[in-house]
Every structure is written in C-alpha cells, then in structure tokens.
C-alpha cells in the first residue's frame, strides 16, 4: 500500500511492447485508407468545386482490399499484415524506440481519424440531409411495404430537429477529439453514441455496422489510455496519477503542428460545415434535383383507366389497373398498383451527385413503381423511365393534358407497348404529420 505522492514513471513490459507494436501497425493501417476507393475519391475530386458529398465520402474511407461493400475480411487482412509487421519489427534494430512518444503519436493519428469520421456523419445530420422528410410517395405507401432500414430513416426524417440534435452531438464529440486533453471525453461520447448506431444498424439491417465497428474500435482505443485512471479514481476512490507525457514541440515543430491542425480543422469543420449548410439549402442529396412537372406535385386518384381501349373499372384486386399516382416536386412519378415490386435495397450511406443515381425514394420499399421522367413541354409528353435497377429499360411514353389544375390525363404507351389512357384526379390528402399536433384531427 504505497501512498506515495511521487509517481514512478510508467515502465513498459515486454508483453506491453509487443502488443503495442501490433496495435500500432493495426491502427495506422486502418487509419490510412489503403484502398482503391481512396485514390478514386481523391483523384476523382474536382478540387476546384468540392462538394460536401466528396468530403463526406472521403471522411468515411477505411482500409479496403476487397472491392464491393465493407466487410470484416478487410480487417482480418489488416490484422495479418500488422502481425507480420510486428514480428519483423521485434527482430529489427528499431525495437527500442521511445514507446511513450510513439504511443502519443499513434493516439494523434487515431483521434484525428476518428474525429474526421464522426464529423463526416455529424454535419449531414446537423443539416438534416441524411434522413430527409419522406416523399409524397413514401407517405402514401403501406407501413408493411418498407424494409426496417427504410422505416428507421423515414422515422428520423419526420423530426429534423432531433436529427440535428444527433448530428450536433457527433460534431461535439469530434471537436473534443481534436484536443489531447478532451479526447477521452469525446471518445466516451462516441462510444455511447456509435454503440447505439451499431446496434440499431444490426437491428434495422442497415449496411453500416462494419464502419460503425470501425469507429467503436477507434474510440475504445482512445478510452483505453485513461480507463485505468478513471476506474482507479471513480470506482476505487484512490488517489490517481494523471497522464505525465506531454509532447514537446519547439521551433518549427510548433508552427508546423499549428498549421496542420488548423488546416484539418478548417477543412473538415468549417469548410465541410459550410458546404453541407449550403447543400442543405440548394442540393439535398437523397432526392433528385431536376424539377418535376409544374404545379403537379401531389397524389392522384386514378378515376379512369383504359388499356387498349378497354375500360378497367375500380377493383379490389387487379394487377393491371393503377390505383393511384404520385407526382413528386422533382421529376419522379410513382404508381401504386397490385403489380409486385422487387425491392431495390441500398442501405448504406453514399452521396450521389447525379439524379439517376439518387435512389433513396425507392430504396427499401415495395408497393409502388418509381419512374424518373423528362418533360417535352412543347409536345406535352412525359418520358418515363423505371428507376429500379430490377426493371431496367422499362419505359413509358405518355402525352399529358391538364384540363384543370386538379386533373391530369395521361395517354400513350406503357412498357408492354399497350396503349393506356389514364385520368388522374388530385386528392386533397392531409397528413397528421404536417398538421398541428395540438388540435383534434379528423382524417
């Protein structure tokens, strides 16, 4: 029972050194995004016109040797390389390094990587881009026709304030990581927060659990440094020594450090923050940008439906007949019918620039077929193109008439080259979500 107040300098045992060498290599390899995607992303940039999407995609890179979606196989590869490297290191003359300062530098790399990763997600939530308010089509789809991942995203989308709150916490945690003394607190926030994201990813069958684990591992590594101290102080209630290692920057090192730090913070916080802010106002990425038919947005009842001249009356079940049609504000039209839909499922976050790649509205949902369209306003024709990759090449060419503001008449050929004639009447649909929550709602 020593109650001496003079701390002995920490000594590294051989086992600790061995472990350290392994983890050093492991985390460095993980933190430097060794992957084809990295070069693609970096050189794919138009550096003069960087969009927030580019920065987001950059922030989210991790070591990847196998093309395709993230998988833990990449981790095993990294671990193997790290193991071989650690063995080689032990036999080399570089065995006796200053472990304290290597540990410090490793922590620098890890916390900056972690900070950038978490801030990457933080801003697209803080400016609620990641989960937008559901589209009209999504609002008019049965609850059971969504995947659980999509439900998760839409449920978040209806409460932008909450989404911003979540984003704010992520950004706060990231900022704390930029500073050595507050890094542990930032890591603790991430652990609680990303731990939740990780579990919800598993539960809702999201596609980000590998990346979430990545962030968690990094955060755990950060906390490890102080964990024993905290346990000693808080749980055992014993006098506790603080961290004694302080990096020593002098002269040029000092200004170099300051310059690099400022650059990173400027780029990933201020610049990226500004870009997401303006993106939120001018180009949210989940939905297409191209404007739809003027003043047509809304849901329409199909009051008349003819195929090859033959009238199909309303019916409880009929695979051919359309039930209702939605015009979005952007150039998407969706049709509800009994015709089955093979679900297009994309469940991890990617930021797409081009409209044709923006498939959020149809990802993870059945019940409706989604078409992007172009308008020939001279001849009053819509060219419809099924957005779902499972129905590639499905095209419709429909002339449109608008006898009054609430009616659209479509006629032309459908994907089977049958002639169709459809009368659409706008429904004055009200949604509890958009109405006052304090009044009695009769809907």
């Amino acid at each position, binding site marked *: *029972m020593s109650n001496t*107040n003079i*701390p002995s300098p920490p000594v590294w045992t051989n086992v600790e050194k061995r472990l350290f060498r392994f983890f050093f290599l492991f985390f460095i390899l993980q933190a430097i995004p060794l992957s084809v995607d990295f070069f693609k992303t970096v050189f794919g940039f138009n550096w003069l016109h960087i969009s927030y999407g580019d920065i987001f995609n950059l922030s989210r890179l991790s070591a990847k040797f196998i093309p395709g979606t993230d998988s833990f196989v990449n981790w095993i590869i990294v671990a193997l390389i790290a193991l071989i490297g650690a063995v080689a290191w032990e036999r080399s003359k570089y065995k006796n390094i200053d472990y304290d300062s290597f540990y410090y530098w490793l922590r620098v790399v890890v916390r900056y990587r972690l900070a950038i990763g978490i801030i990457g997600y933080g801003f697209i939530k803080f400016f609620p881009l990641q989960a937008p308010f*559901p589209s*009209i089509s999504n*609002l*008019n789809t*049965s*609850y*059971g*026709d*969504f*995947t*659980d991942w999509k*439900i998760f995203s839409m*449920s978040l989308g*209806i*409460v932008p*304030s*909450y989404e911003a709150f979540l984003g704010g916490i992520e950004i706060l945690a990231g900022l704390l990581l930029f500073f050595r*003394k*507050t890094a542990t*607190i930032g890591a603790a926030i991430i652990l*609680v927060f990303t731990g939740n994201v990780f*579990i*919800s990813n598993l*539960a*809702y*069958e999201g596609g980000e659990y590998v990346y979430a684990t990545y962030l968690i591992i990094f955060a755990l590594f950060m906390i490890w440094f*102080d964990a024993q*101290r*905290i346990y000693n*102080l*808080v*749980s055992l*209630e*014993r*006098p506790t*020594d*603080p961290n004694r290692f302080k990096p020593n920057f002098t002269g040029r090192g000092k200004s170099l450090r300051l310059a690099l730090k400022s650059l990173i913070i400027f780029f990933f916080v201020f610049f990226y923050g500004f870009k997401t802010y303006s993106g939120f106002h001018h180009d949210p990425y989940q939905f297409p940008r191209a404007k739809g038919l003027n003043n047509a947005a809304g849901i329409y*009842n199909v009051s008349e439906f003819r195929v090859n001249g033959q009238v199909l*009356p*309303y019916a*409880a*079940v009929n695979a051919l007949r359309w039930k*209702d049609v939605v015009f979005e504000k952007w150039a998407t039209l969706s049709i509800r019918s009994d015709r089955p839909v093979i*679900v297009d499922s994309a469940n991890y976050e990617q930021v797409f620039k081009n409209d044709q790649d923006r498939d959020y509205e149809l990802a*993870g949902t*059945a019940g409706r077929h989604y078409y992007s369209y172009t308008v020939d306003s001279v001849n009053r024709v819509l060219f419809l193109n099924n957005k779902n990759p499972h129905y590639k090449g499905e095209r419709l060419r429909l002339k449109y008439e608008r006898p009054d503001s609430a009616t659209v008449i479509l006629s032309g050929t459908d994907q089977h080259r049958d002639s169709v004639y459809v009368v659409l009447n706008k429904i004055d*649909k009200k*949604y*509890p*979500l958009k109405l006052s*929550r*304090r*009044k*009695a*709602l*009769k*809907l």
Partner: protein
Amino acid sequence: MSEIKQQDTEKELTDYQTTAKKPWSWQKKFGFRVLFIFFLAMSIPFSANWYKNVFTLDWSRPHYRDLYDIARFQPSFLSLFGGQRSRDISDSPSGDESAKKNESPKNKAENGAVKKGEAKNDAGLPPKNSFLADYTDWGIALLFALVGALIWTAIDRKSKSYHLLYYWIRVVVRYRAGIGIIGFGFTKLFPTQMPYPSLGLLNSNFGDFTAQKIYWLSVGVVPWYQVFGGVVEIAAGTMLFFRKTTTFGAILLAAALGDITFVNYAYDGGVHVYAFYFVILALFLAADDFPKLYHLLILERYTVPFRIYPDFRKPWLKYSRITLKVLTFVIFFGVLTYTEVINFKYDPYKQPATAGVKKLRGNYHVSEFKINGQVIPFNPLDSTRWQEATFENWTTLTFKINRPVLIDPSNGGGSPMRDIQRTFEISGVAGGQRAFHYYADTVDKVLYLQDKNVMALRGARKGADRGKQDQPKEDNWISKTAWQHIGDENKMIDKVAWSTRRDREFEEKPREVKRHRMVLKYDTTDGSRVILSGINERKDSIYIVLDRYNRKYVLPKSTLNAGKY
C-alpha cells in the same frame, strides 16, 4: 466490504481528514440544504394512490403493473393541493413513455377507464401546456426546498458540514433513479412497450400516422433493438445500486434518458418530463465526480478522491442496509422479471390478450358489399363501403372506409385489463382506419363489435344525446344466452397470467357507454371466405363478403412475438 474499504481510505487519506474537517462556506451549506430538500421531495412519493397501491398489493398473485406502479412516480404536488393535473400513479396511464402529455383529462380517460369505468373517456386532447408549465411540480419542489433551507439555516447554526447527509441523499436518489429506470427497462427487455405492428397498422400508409405513432412503431418493428434498449436502462439502473459503479450508471442514464427526452419533444411522445426527471437525478449523482475527472483528465493533476461514508459496522445500519438492498433486488429483479415474462407471454399490455376466433385471421379483400340490400361496387372514393379488412390474432376486426375519423391522439398505453380499452392498434392512425373489438359467440356464430376509437365515440356522443332517452337503462345488446356462449373475459387468458389486479378490474362494472356497435353473424367454413351480415354502427343492415389473401410484407416478421393467440 465497506468496512475494509473505509479503513483503507482512512489510512490513505490521512491528509484528507483535514479536508473533511474543514467547515463549508455558508453558501455551500445553504446550497446543500436546498438541494437536499429538493431531491428528497423529488424522490419520495407524495400521492395517496401510490401508497394505496403498495398496501393493497396482493403479493401472492402479482401483476407486473403492480410493481411498475411502485417504480413509477414523480413529484405531483399540484394534485395534493387539489389541482387538476393529478399525476398520481394510478391515475396516470403512463404505462409507457408517451402518456405524460395526455396528463390531465386524457389520463383519466385512459386509465381512469380502468378505475371509473369509461366515465371520462370523452375528455380528449392534450392540454396546451407551455414549456415551463410541464415542470410546475418541480418548481413547487424547488420552492419547498428554498423555504425549507431558510428555516433549516435559521435553526441549525452549529453544523460545519453535511458529509453524511450528502451520502444519504445520494443513496435516496440512487435508489429512486435505479428503481424507476428498471421499471421502465423491463417493459422493453421483454418487449411489450412498443408492440410489433398488427395487420391493420401494416396496411396503413406511413403518412396516415401521427409523429408519435411513427416513433412507437419504428421501435416496435425491431423487437431486438427494444430489448437492447431495455438492457441499457436496466444496466444503468443496476449500476446505481452500487457505489463503485454509480457514476458510470449515472452517466449512462443521463445520456440515454437525455436522448429519450429529446425524442419525446421531437415526436410529441409526451413523457419528456418523466424522462428529464431521470436526467436530473442522474446528473446530481454524476456531478460529484465531475470536478475530480476534470482535475485528472483536463488539468492533468494528481487527483485525490474524497468522500465520507457512514460507519456501516454499526449493526443496525449494517442489517437494515442488507435488508433494504436484498428487498430491492428480490422485488425489482426477481418478482418483476417473473411478472414481466408472464405479461410478455400471455398478456402483452398494449395488445388485446384474448385470442381471436381461430378461423378468422388475416387480411381480407372486401369482394362484395351490400348496404340495406343495395350493392355498392368497389370505389376508393366511396364513403360507406369497406375497402379492406383484417381480423387480427386477437379479438379485433379492422376495416378501412374513405370517411374521416377523429384520431385518437393517445399512445394506446396505460394498462387496462379489458381488451376493448387496449387501443394501440388504432391510436394515432388516420386514413379512415377503424378498429372494432368483438366478443365472439362461437356457438351461434355472432360477433358483438364495439368501436375502439374513443374519439369517435366522443364525436358521436353529441349527436347521440337526443337518442339517449330511447335507450333503455339496462343494456342488453348481448343476450344472456350469448354471454354464456362468449364466456368471462377475465378468464380468457392463460391461467398463469391471472392476477388479483385483473380480478379487481373486472369486478368493477364499467359504466355503460354507447360506443359504435355492430352485431354481425359470420359464416365461413375455413376462413378463406367469410360472410358477415347484420347491423352496422349506423343501424343499416349490411352484407359483406370477405376473401382472405396472403399479403407479403417487405418488413421482416418479428422474431419475438408477444402474447399467446
């Protein structure tokens, strides 16, 4: 254990004894007095109903709700003073996180339905509370604390510091928060708080739900996630029962409940006050270690913890401590687990518990629809024809009509025993969706249906007043013979799940309220085609042919199914 601990600390901390003896400044003393009284007032139940529940509880046949009601309370001084917003435990529905907003009238509607029949069902909407008004009870507690502290200061001129009292108030708050959050956690651990959506809900459009409903359902679709939430809450609570882990438990609790507080504001869930209550308690507990952690991590200085414990070597202290701890664990881990498992398996409190008629289950197309002998063809715009129908696993028929209804804004919570009062499947749902509870006379093949939507009832009542005189006082819409065929609802769930609480509720006769009613004969061989005929809620005669279809949902099926049907 604690004794050794204390000796240790004594040895180690000789130089801190000086700190211990150092008198507190008057500000610190006054501040402590305020906090002490405030947190005491926050942590002790002040409602008669709470005590009534505790003392009338039948431990031989417990119901999970009995224990939940012990765990769940928060300051409710207004009700003490005869205020309107009574928040007593038995008056508050709050089986779940959303009820709180429905506080005043609505509460009584839902839950009171339990106690007072359906007397107040018609009081519908959440009151327009301002942000601060929700926290009036806290304000009163604080006022008490200030006044109390002044008196205390006047009387107590000797005390230099309050280390021991500080220890004890921490114990009170630790146990209060721990027990409270565990009561919550268990309804998630055995996921009954947010049920998996029923067929009628799966068929409704996403845009036809209220925000609160969407939140509820989004957790309900992933029962394992709900279990995880329960684990977190229970873990946090458990950590509060031990000194060594208190701070970690408190931080976890503050983080989790802080999030839930925000969720409740965002989705209008309604339990923001109760959630924030835990945040405050947790912060109070964690605050003790914050300066130390700041000292250690940010200032990077040698840090010496300091806390004074009572001497637990005194036998009376030792044994009462052991007794209380064991009692807490037996009740809130042992008995509560048992009753929750029973509830989950046989009587999930938000879903009707009685199994529906076996043949009548599933999704149905409405193939033919006649009203007063006249055929009404399918038309999505028609305002009388049923568009689609479902028979749930339990005693509910749902159908959709293109005619607006007043939405039931509640969360379908509380813990009513009667199936008809369990309204999760219809609350917060628009889009013309209806849900009717039925008693099935399987001998004569008749369904006695009643509208589950309380709001619809309220709307109808004004109009129905004029018809009231015509109604006989005795309500015999179900004949004695039919009742014999139907049986006793109280006994319809598995015997294991019977409880004294259930008996008491069924003994109390519900005040007869004229809900919308239908009496429909059903005719079917195997359930694939069902013919319903009889009188609908508007006293028209209807004839309906239903054809069952198999609907494939994209949403994965639940792997954790509550209830036994």
